[in-house]
């Protein structure tokens, strides 16, 4: 309860300059990693033109790295594109959130769409008010787009000067990017189970299946875990707020998987941490984490009082 006073108050509206500074910071940090992409793509055998076309036209980093990796491993173009596409699907859900915040005129949407990516979403969601959201989106989008393409070109051109990119350790850039995007998404047992199962599936698949296919097969980890949850100990039937999107990764300050709680998802994490299987399976659906009142009551019915109550308790603290 003492936490009540420690909770950050709603941030006051920030000046345009502050929003621009945030946006530029994220834009520069991420834009620069285009260099790693340029080198990786060139090292995978793509021409400079092909490499730059990817950054200009696809412009969503994880998909680009995935496509290049699949092509380098000898995958056929459609399998490779499928993996990249499925990774890009998350942008549709970012777009949903952004549409509500930005309220763009219909005519602008086809142009704004190209900038709907992890980084612009992170910055835009962090702003309060439409004006700040629009500035954040536009400045982050422009900065990342410009720098990502510029550094892609430099990386692609520089790759030949570097000689063997592997000698410089640049083959580790791709997986490091994936890991950095993944880490903030691993908050609940369900999410970790999906990641773990996906790793097992892909490692079993690599020696057995054609290149590019194992990654697609690993996507089945998501529905598989959803189907299994509640039946396997440790895989709660309710996953807190995961029905919502994972918070988009923040390249500047990645939310930490081991964080005890952050204000946005504190209730969910709190219940997850203390309730164990009891509180979460007992409450069924999302009631347990969504409404504190429902927690203890429903939990009591199935004899999971302590777990559910503690969950409700924490909920009050953050709520």
């Amino acid at each position: 309860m003492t936490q009540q006073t420690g909770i950050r108050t709603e941030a006051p509206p920030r000046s345009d300059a502050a929003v621009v500074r945030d946006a530029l910071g994220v834009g520069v940090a991420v834009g620069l990693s285009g260099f790693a992409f340029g080198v990786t793509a060139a090292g995978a055998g793509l021409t400079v033109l092909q490499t730059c076309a990817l950054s200009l036209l696809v412009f969503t980093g994880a998909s680009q790295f995935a496509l290049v990796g699949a092509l380098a491993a000898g995958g056929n173009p459609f399998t490779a594109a499928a993996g990249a596409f499925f990774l890009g699907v998350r942008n549709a859900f970012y777009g949903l959130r952004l549409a509500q915040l930005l309220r763009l005129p219909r005519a602008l949407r086809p142009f704004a769409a190209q900038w709907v990516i992890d980084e612009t979403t992170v910055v835009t969601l962090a702003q309060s008010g439409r004006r700040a959201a629009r500035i954040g989106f536009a400045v982050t989008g422009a900065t990342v787009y410009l720098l990502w393409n510029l550094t892609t070109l430099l990386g692609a051109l520089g790759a030949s000067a570097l000689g063997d990119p592997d000698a410089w350790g640049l083959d580790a850039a791709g997986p490091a990017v994936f890991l950095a995007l993944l880490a903030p998404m691993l908050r609940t047992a369900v999410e970790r189970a999906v990641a773990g199962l996906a790793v097992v599936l892909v490692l079993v698949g690599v020696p057995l299946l054609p290149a590019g296919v194992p990654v697609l097969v690993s996507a089945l980890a998501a529905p598989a875990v959803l189907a299994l949850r509640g039946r396997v100990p440790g895989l709660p039937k309710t996953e807190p707020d995961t029905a919502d999107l994972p918070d988009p990764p923040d390249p500047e300050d990645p939310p930490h998987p081991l964080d005890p709680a952050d204000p946005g998802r504190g209730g969910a994490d709190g219940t997850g941490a203390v309730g164990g299987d009891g509180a979460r399976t007992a409450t069924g659906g999302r009631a347990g984490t969504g409404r504190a009142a429902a927690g203890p009551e429903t939990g009591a019915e199935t004899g999971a009082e302590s777990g559910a109550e503690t969950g409700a308790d924490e909920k009050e603290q953050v709520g």
Partner: protein
Amino acid sequence: MSVWIAIGVTTVGCYLVKLLGLSVPAGVLERPAVKRLAALVPIALLAALTAQQTLSEGTALVPDARVAGVGAAAVALLLRAPFLVVVGVAVLVTAGARALGA
């Protein structure tokens, strides 16, 4: 040629899903089952890609210096390092491990 096909298909697909999100009325994609899967599929893909690109070469599992680099990146993430530092650490440690003959 096949590279251009892959680029073209990926371009069209990735652009259309971006535009879809901005354009559809809220509610269409808001069904719980859809949202839950949409949240979990990227997790599966990113985890698989991390493992595959760290441990495999073509269709063989070949653990090498990348394991050290990506492991160092994981430590950097735990220490809340910024994105660019995480990638930089992975590259440098991999290069270092390789220079040492890993």
